[in-house]
Structure formats: structure tokens, C-alpha cells
């Protein structure tokens, strides 16, 4: 455990992109979860502040046409978007694990093949139109968890496919055969053979799902199908477009969500890459090789 933490910090120093990701994410999380509750007013409410003010000292990111403070709006939006993405990741992984395991483990049986067909179908179905139909049908009830659920109905497909191929690959690996043949219990095998391959994948996939969810929520927002009461990135863009923010030159209203999204997504992505490399057993091999050479050097 201690070694893992040390490795984390060492990697932080080595990889510039990873540190960028972590730092940005931490800042965003602080803004969203720590700073947001201190908002002096509910940022979604209209008319709380003077309208259409460009960024100034008092209103660091300006105000909207309906009298909202863009800065506090952004903090709430960050929080809600993150919550949404985490929930989506969670739900999607649940479904994906279930479906992935079945189709991977029972690959030859009918159930396995059927599950595989289902997974492939969901991978091909155009996600956005379907989620739009779902969101539209339940428009009045749209809240963050529900949107996450809807997103997950499509989001599980890709991870499921990957999990299936991981399981198939693991099944074929000779060292698993050997372990089984040597009489190791299924649990021990799972712990020492499966987990090292599956854990890094879980970490990266959850982060990828989060990235995807944020992007999809933005898309839904453009169509006005995101949560109307809560501040989200998508909703902000929707209102900004509706009030012709671009045409009227109120760039801060539409610029803020855009920049926020980019920051969120890039930070999550670089973290997922960094984690993937850190946890990847094969890259650890390369690290081991390096360490061995160091040792040999010292022996000479």
C-alpha cells in the first residue's frame, strides 16, 4: 500500500500530463464541492444580480441576461456535472460488469452468445437520439440521477465489450490454466490473476465514462433536455444560446461552460492515462527491468 502511494507521487513528478490532470481536477473539485456551498444566492434564480455585466472584480465571470452570476453558476454546474458523471460511471459499470462477465464466461453457451449479440447491438445503436427520446419522454422528472440512468442505458455497451475481451483473454492465458491445474482455489486465482488485469481497466473505464457523460450532458443541454432546475454545463449553454448570447456579444456566458468542459474532460483524461500506465502490469515490468539494471550497475 505504502509503495503504491509512493509510486503515485513519483509518477506525478515524472509525467507532466498526469500532474496537469490531477492539479486541474483537484482545483475543479474544490470549486465545485467546497466553494459552491458558499454561494451567497442560489445561482439558478433569475434576477439576483444585475443583468448582462461583463467580467469584473465583483462578478469575476460576468452575469447573464436573466440576472445570474456566471461564476457561482459555474461552480454549481461543475458540481452537478461531476455528480452526474460519477453516477453514470457507477451505473454503467454495474450493468457492464454483469453483461461482460456473462458473455465472457459463458462464451460458448447460448446465453453467452445471446448476451454478446445484445452487447454488440447496444454498441451500434445511435446513442444520442435514443437518450433524447428517453429524456424527452420523462421531461418533467428529469433530475441528475435520472439523467445518469438514461445515459447509462447506452453507456454500458462499450465497457461491456472490453470487459468481455479481457475475460476471454485471461481465460486463455496459460498461467491461469497452470494455477487451476495446480489446485489453487478459484478465489485465489481471481485475486492474483484476474484482478491485476481488471483493476487498471476499471479505473480507466470509469474515468472514460465520466468524460463521455459530461460530453453527452452538454449535448443534451444544447437540445434543452438536461435538468432545467439544476445548474449544469448543458443547461447553461442552452440558456446562453436561447438568449442569443453569442449574437449579442456576451461571450462570458457561453465561454465559461465551454472552457469548464474542456478543463474537466482533459484533466479526467490525463488522469486516466496516467493511472492506466501506473497500474498496468506490463509497464511495471519495464520499470522492474530498469530497476534491475540499476542493481546490476551497482554490483559492478
Amino acid at each position: 500500500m505504502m509503495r503504491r502511494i509512493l509510486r503515485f507521487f513519483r509518477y506525478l513528478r515524472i509525467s507532466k500530463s498526469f500532474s496537469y490532470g490531477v492539479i486541474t481536477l483537484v482545483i475543479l473539485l474544490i470549486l465545485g464541492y467546497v466553494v459552491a456551498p458558499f454561494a451567497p444566492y442560489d445561482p439558478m434564480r433569475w434576477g439576483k444580480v444585475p443583468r448582462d455585466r461583463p467580467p469584473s472584480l465583483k462578478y469575476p465571470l460576468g452575469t447573464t441576461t436573466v440576472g445570474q452570476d456566471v461564476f457561482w453558476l459555474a461552480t454549481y454546474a461543475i458540481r452537478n456535472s461531476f455528480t452526474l458523471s460519477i453516477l453514470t460511471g457507477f451505473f454503467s459499470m454495474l450493468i457492464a460488469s454483469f453483461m461482460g462477465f456473462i458473455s465472457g464466461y459463458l462464451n460458448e453457451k447460448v446465453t453467452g452468445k445471446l448476451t454478446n449479440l445484445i452487447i454488440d447491438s447496444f454498441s451500434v445503436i445511435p446513442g444520442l437520439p435514443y437518450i433524447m427520446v428517453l429524456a424527452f419522454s420523462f421531461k418533467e422528472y428529469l433530475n441528475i440521477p435520472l439523467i445518469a440512468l438514461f445515459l447509462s442505458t447506452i453507456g454500458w455497451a462499450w465497457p461491456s465489450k472490453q470487459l468481455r475481451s479481457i475475460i476471454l483473454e485471461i481465460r486463455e492465458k496459460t498461467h491461469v490454466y497452470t494455477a487451476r491445474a495446480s489446485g489453487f482455489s478459484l478465489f485465489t486465482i481471481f485475486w492474483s490473476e484476474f484482478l491485476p488485469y481488471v483493476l487498471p481497466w476499471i479505473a480507466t473505464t470509469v474515468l472514460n465514462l465520466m468524460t463521455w457523460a459530461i460530453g453527452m450532458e452538454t449535448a443534451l443541454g444544447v437540445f434543452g433536455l438536461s435538468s432545467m432546475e439544476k445548474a449544469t454545463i448543458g443547461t447553461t449553454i442552452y440558456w446562453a444560446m436561447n438568449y442569443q448570447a453569442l449574437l449579442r456579444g456576451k461571450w462570458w456566458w457561453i465561454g465559461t461552460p465551454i472552457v469548464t468542459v474542456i478543463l474537466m474532460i482533459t484533466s479526467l483524461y490525463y488522469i486516466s492515462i496516467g493511472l492506466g500506465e501506473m497500474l498496468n502490469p506490463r509497464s511495471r515490468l519495464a520499470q522492474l527491468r530498469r530497476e534491475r539494471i540499476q542493481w546490476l550497475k551497482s554490483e559492478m
Partner: protein
Amino acid sequence: MVEIRNVKAYYKIGADLFVKAVDGVSVSFETGKITGIAGESGCGKSTLLKVCIGWIKPPLSVLAGEVIYKFDGERVNILDLDEDSLQRYRWNLFAVVPQAAMNSLNPVRKLKKIFEETMRKFGIKKLTKEDEKTVEKVISDVGLPKEVLNMYPPQLSGGMKQRIIMALAIIAKPKVIFCDEPTTGLDLVTQKGILLFLREIKEKYGITIVLISHDMGVHAQITDNLAIMYAGKLIEYASTKEIFRNPLHPYTKALINSLPTIGEKEQKEKLPGAPPPLLNPPSGCRFHPRCMQSADICRKEVPELKEVKPGHYVACHRVGEV
């Protein structure tokens, strides 16, 4: 045909760390004969091959030495050549039969096209009818039907692919062919076929062949001359007959003793120890830690390759003393 002079080729794996895969090797490959290079895994034979064909990619680098091809009255040191010139000699002067040829054929390319591209000497865009006939003849020479030309590599079995690789090697009529473990992993019948084919092309076309293998049985069957390598050094060289009749280096003796003979009932003796790490080889004679006959001098001085009998070279301090 090919003369290798004091080649030192190392793999760089760290700031000051080198794996001394080939450490000062000099040997000649006689024109029109089959020379075998034998030795355990990791003794440097494959690296020597790479140097001979100019296949030097980082982390490999050649620190010293020459590889000289003598043909048609010319002498060319390929280590001196730049990439473009080397490119011209590839397959014209020398060809390679790589190890594990299973995946050496482009799976999405028809065999016919693969032959075409190999034969396309510079300038000639389209092949003539004559060229096609040549290809067909070579195909039948390796024992394959000419229909195989219209097939794709994934449709062929391992043995068939190996024969295609052989056919590709001779199609451009090179002067030298290097074979890297051509029989490893194949069944005995196919192995025999390949070895006989090699002998045949030597006799028919006078091609010089260099055969790398860790299998002494293979060398016994078709090689004319044999070079034994150990830990990056050449330790013995003579005609194959001479080596098997009268091995002088202790390592060679051990190698030959490992071959089973029909009727033998005694247990084979294993050579103690393991091949040394090439990162930091033993001082003096590299074999001395495992040698039954090592003396003080073996630990201190590196033995030179000396001609102890006409045509028979050995690198050992204690030759003739035991």
C-alpha cells in the same frame, strides 16, 4: 566469400552498460560451402547474423570490425555502406531466412505479389513471362504446387510457409544465404526436407550458405564447415568432419557428447553451470568457470584463436594438454 574481421557488436542498455553479444569475432565463410554456426541460446549467433546482413538497429551497435563480401572481384565492407547502398545489395548479394518464419509473410498480400515484389530488381516494373516461369520453377523446387501462388499466407501451413520463405531466398539468385534456425519448431520430416533443399541449392547454384542452429544434429547432417560460439566469442572452427572426429575445445566436446547415438546406454553428462551473463562476462577465457580443465592462466588471459592443425582453429590455453 564473406570475411568477418574482429567484429564487436554490443547492445546498449544503459548509460554505460553494454551486453557484449559479439566480442571480437573473426571468421570466414567459404564460397560455395555450407558453414554452420553452433552454440547455446544467447551465445551471440543471431547477433552475428544481424551484423552480417547489416541489420543494425538500436540498441545494437557495432563498435569495431569489418564484414567483407568478396564477389566478382570486388571487396565490399557492408558496415561501411550507407542505407541506400546497402539497400541495393539486399537480396541481390545476400538473402536471409529468418527465424520463426511463421509470421514473416504479409497476411493480406497474395503470394504471387510477394514474389513479384521480391524479384523486382530496380527499374523493372512489370514482370515478364520469363520471370513468372522462374517463380513457378522455384515453387516446384521447394515442393509446392504452383496453385499456391494465388493463395494468401494465412491459408498455408507452417511447413508450407517455411518453404515459401526458402523459395523467396533463392529467387533473386543471391550469392550468400543466411539461415537463422531454419529447422526450429518444425517436425522432423519437414526439417529433413529443408536441409536437403539447402544442400541441393548449394550444389546446383553454388550459393554460399551460413546456417545458424543450436542443434548439433542439424550441423552434422549438411554443413561443410562449423564454427562454435560461446558467450560472444568464437572458440573453435574447422570442417564439420574434423570437429566431430576430433573436437579440441572442452565446450565443443560437451556439445558433441550431448548428441545421442544409437545403442548408447550411458547417461549423458550435463555441463555444469550456465552460460555467463554477457553484461559482465568472466575474466580471461569465458568458459573457465564451467571448464573441467581450467588452469590459472584460463582465468587470467583471454585465449586467442590459433590454428593448431591446418584448417582447425581453437581458442583454448590447454589444447593438447589433456
